[in-house]
């Protein structure tokens, strides 16, 4: 702004002008220095804050900030040197307390000084990029006290000693520790780490190495784990009480490494108390503890998992190949279920349902169940046993639970079609002899199989049920239309659709006169309603109830198979019959007839016939009589019902062959399906795709697949590519 006119008045300078006097700076500074001394001597109450503040303000304002700052540094350093001498002088335990006290004093003084010199802090220091007062104070403390040669080492050793004492069980002054550690932290994280944390971690590592060595020599696995857990918790507690939070991770790592990681293999394989023993004895608590501790170290869980898997496979293999157990399939499957239950509960209780452990369990089970190629048969027999008698009186939920467990085992099977075959056979026998305990249970199992394997699997099984129902209706219709037959023998016919039921060679026998007349009537009735169908009697699967009166007048109702009924009816007309006569009259094939007669003549308690000679075997010339002396406690006597049994060797071979035969068209269908969509595919890929598609039914054999491919090529479904021998092409 330019003055046009000369002003009349002049703006006077501030009246209150401080004298720019070199001595002024000295004077002011001495006042401040004196004040600082007083502050350090706890004599501040006599001072006026305002005056000091004003003095500092003026010094900075008149560009004496430099002097103020350097003076401050010098004064503080001098004081701190004094303080450190006094700390050094302290003896023994008082050392730490003295240090703590002096630190508190210093902090307070620093605060006050900072308040007075606030103006300098705000203006001079940012301009000259010097350290602010507070920080300056901390740095000076650090340099003069903590890092002074005598104090530094003593401080560290005292702290470590206190920690060591606490580890060995003594009680120490935690408050003091906390303050000292906090002091180190306030001085800067690098101070804390360098001066305390690093040596602390090293000493701790040594300590735990020694301790773990000691323990592992004398304790067993469970005890060692308990101790390790104890120490771990102790360290965590220590951190929360008086260490920096960031140290928690580091110290826990140290403990984990020393106590757990280094001894992991040894712990797991410890004799008489290692992982395997814990699994065998169901020690849930110990297992849970092991799981929690090992989870903290890398590879801990995988070690447990591996050992568990190999142990499980061992046990499973033993179970499955043990000849003793194989004699009773029901027992066998029950043991499998028990093992599964046991490990399920171990995983859920001790391993907190860890998915990876579940997977390991599943894969082990899959492995050893498929080691025994009779597993599908046995599982089917187990289900059969349960559905016949095991589920009597069991509540609905329990039934569901048992069936679910069986389904679990079913899932592990690789050869599900073998199971299907056996299940069909057993189901047929159950349905025809009317022996199933609960229709609902049967149906629910079929539903489960359907959800597992698809409609195709269960369509035939459902067909069997439908047949039974239809037959009932047919019978009702038959008797309704032939009311004159109600007086004679009652006929119950099950009409079976050939496709659904397991194929049996149909052998007829000569039925007694009363029966054959009835059967003819039924045949004509049925063909009347369903033209174009063919009926053939399956006499080997039927049963009969006959009333018999014996020599002393005892009446019994006998439940026998159809064959046995034919034989017994013969005795209505003759007293004595030889084997040959029986064979001729009934037309029953020899092996079946022999079995029939054996069950009726040679079995104690069921010998309605008497044989001469009284040998176990049936010879060609044996003679049979009605056993007049037959007695039984019950009115109704069951003889020789057709029970599902473990197959004998030749039967087993036969079934297996049939299964193989059945697989061939399935493989072919899969190949054609794949080729139709892909058009061109090479050999390895075909094999992979086919195996994947058929996985839910059975494990396909690559050589078998190759054979099928060859056969399809012969039949012009596929062709080989001209240039690349491995490539196949689909021919429409």
């Amino acid at each position, binding site marked *: 702004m330019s003055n046009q006119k000369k002003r009349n008045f002049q703006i006077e300078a501030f009246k*209150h002008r401080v004298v720019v006097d070199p001595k002024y700076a000295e004077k002011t500074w001495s006042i401040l220095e004196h004040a600082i001394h007083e502050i350090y001597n706890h004599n501040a*109450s006599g001072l*006026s*804050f*305002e005056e000091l*503040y*004003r003095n500092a303000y003026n010094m900075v304002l008149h560009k004496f900030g430099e002097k103020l700052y350097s003076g401050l540094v010098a004064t503080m350093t001098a004081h701190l040197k004094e303080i450190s001498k006094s700390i050094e002088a302290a003896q023994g335990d008082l050392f730490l307390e003295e240090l703590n006290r002096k630190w508190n004093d210093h902090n307070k003084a620093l*605060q006050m000084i900072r*308040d007075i010199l606030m103006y300098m802090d705000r203006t001079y220091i940012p301009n000259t990029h010097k350290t602010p007062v507070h920080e300056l104070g901390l740095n000076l403390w650090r340099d003069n006290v903590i890092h002074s040669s005598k104090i530094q080492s003593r401080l560290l050793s005292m702290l470590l000693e206190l920690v060591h004492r606490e580890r060995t069980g003594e009680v120490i002054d935690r408050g003091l520790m906390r303050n000292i550690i906090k002091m180190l932290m306030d001085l800067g994280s690098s101070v804390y780490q360098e001066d305390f944390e690093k040596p602390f971690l090293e000493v701790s590592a040594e300590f735990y190495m020694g301790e773990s060595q000691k323990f592992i020599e004398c304790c067993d696995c469970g005890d060692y784990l308990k101790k390790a857990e104890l120490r771990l918790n102790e360290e965590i507690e220590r951190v929360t009480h008086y260490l920096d939070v960031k140290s928690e991770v580091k110290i826990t790592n140290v403990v984990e490494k020393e106590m757990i990681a280094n001894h992991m293999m040894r712990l797991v394989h410890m004799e008489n108390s290692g992982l395997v023993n814990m699994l065998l004895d169901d020690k849930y608590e110990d297992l849970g503890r092991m799981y929690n501790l090992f989870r903290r170290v890398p590879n801990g869980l995988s070690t447990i998992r591996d050992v568990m898997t190999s142990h499980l496979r061992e046990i499973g293999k033993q179970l499955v190949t043990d000849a003793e157990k194989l004699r009773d399939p029901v027992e066998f499957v029950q043991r499998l279920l028990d093992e599964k239950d046991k490990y399920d509960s171990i995983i859920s209780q001790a391993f907190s349902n860890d998915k990876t452990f579940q997977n390991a369990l599943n894969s082990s089970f899959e492995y050893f169940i498929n080691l025994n190629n009779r597993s599908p048969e046995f599982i089917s027999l187990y289900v059969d046993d349960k559905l016949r008698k095991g589920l009597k009186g069991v509540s609905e939920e329990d039934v569901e639970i048992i069936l679910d467990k069986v389904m679990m085992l079913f899932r592990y099977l690789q050869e599900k079609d073998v199971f299907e075959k056996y299940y069909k056979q057993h189901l047929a026998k159950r349905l025809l002899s009317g022996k199933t305990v609960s229709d609902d249970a049967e149906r629910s199992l079929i539903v489960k199989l359907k959800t597992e394997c698809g409609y195709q699997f269960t369509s035939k099984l459902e067909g069997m049920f439908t047949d039974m129902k239809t037959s009932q209706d047919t019978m009702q219709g038959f008797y309704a239309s032939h009311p004159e037959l109600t007086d004679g023998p009652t006929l119950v016919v099950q009409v079976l659709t050939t496709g659904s039921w397991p194929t049996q060679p149909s052998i007829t026998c000569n039925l007694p006169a009363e029966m054959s007349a009835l059967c003819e009537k039924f045949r004509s009735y049925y063909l009347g309603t369903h033209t174009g169908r063919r009926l053939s009697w399956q006499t080997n699967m039927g049963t009969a109830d006959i009333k018999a009166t014996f020599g002393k007048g005892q009446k019994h109702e006998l439940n026998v198979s159809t064959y046995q009924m034919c034989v017994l009816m013969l005795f209505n007309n003759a007293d004595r019959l030889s084997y040959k006569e029986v064979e001729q009259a009934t037309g029953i094939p020899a092996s079946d007839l022999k079995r029939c007669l054996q069950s009726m003549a040679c079995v104690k308690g069921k010998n309605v016939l008497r044989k001469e000679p009284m040998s176990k075997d049936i010879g060609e010339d044996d003679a049979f009589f009605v056993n007049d002396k037959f007695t039984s406690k019950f009115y109704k006597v069951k003889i020789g019902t057709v029970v599902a049994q473990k197959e004998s060797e030749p039967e087993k071979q036969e079934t297996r062959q049939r299964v193989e035969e059945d697989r061939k068209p399935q493989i072919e269908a899969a190949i054609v399906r794949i080729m139709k969509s892909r058009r061109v595919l090479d050999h390895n890929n075909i094999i992979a795709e086919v195996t994947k598609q058929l996985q839910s039914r059975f494990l396909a054999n690559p050589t078998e697949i190759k054979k099928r491919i060859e056969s399809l090529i012969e039949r012009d479904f596929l062709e080989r590519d001209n240039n690349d021998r491995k490539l196949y092409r689909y021919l429409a």
Partner: protein
Amino acid sequence: MKRKDTVKLISADEMEFVIDKDAAMVSQTIRNMLTSPGGFAETELGEVTFPEISAVILEKICQYFYWALQYSR
């Protein structure tokens, strides 16, 4: 005596201004003075002397304190 906490500000020419502590705390300097850990004279007596500030100015300052309390959030 007022029940609320008050401080006394004394100017160069011996004028005393009694204001609430909250108002006085608006100034960082006064706040530090009053809350300093050390036992300065100010904290004990609850009064601050300003030998270089005249009464008129000090009055304006006190008015500013109250305005600041009311309007600046």
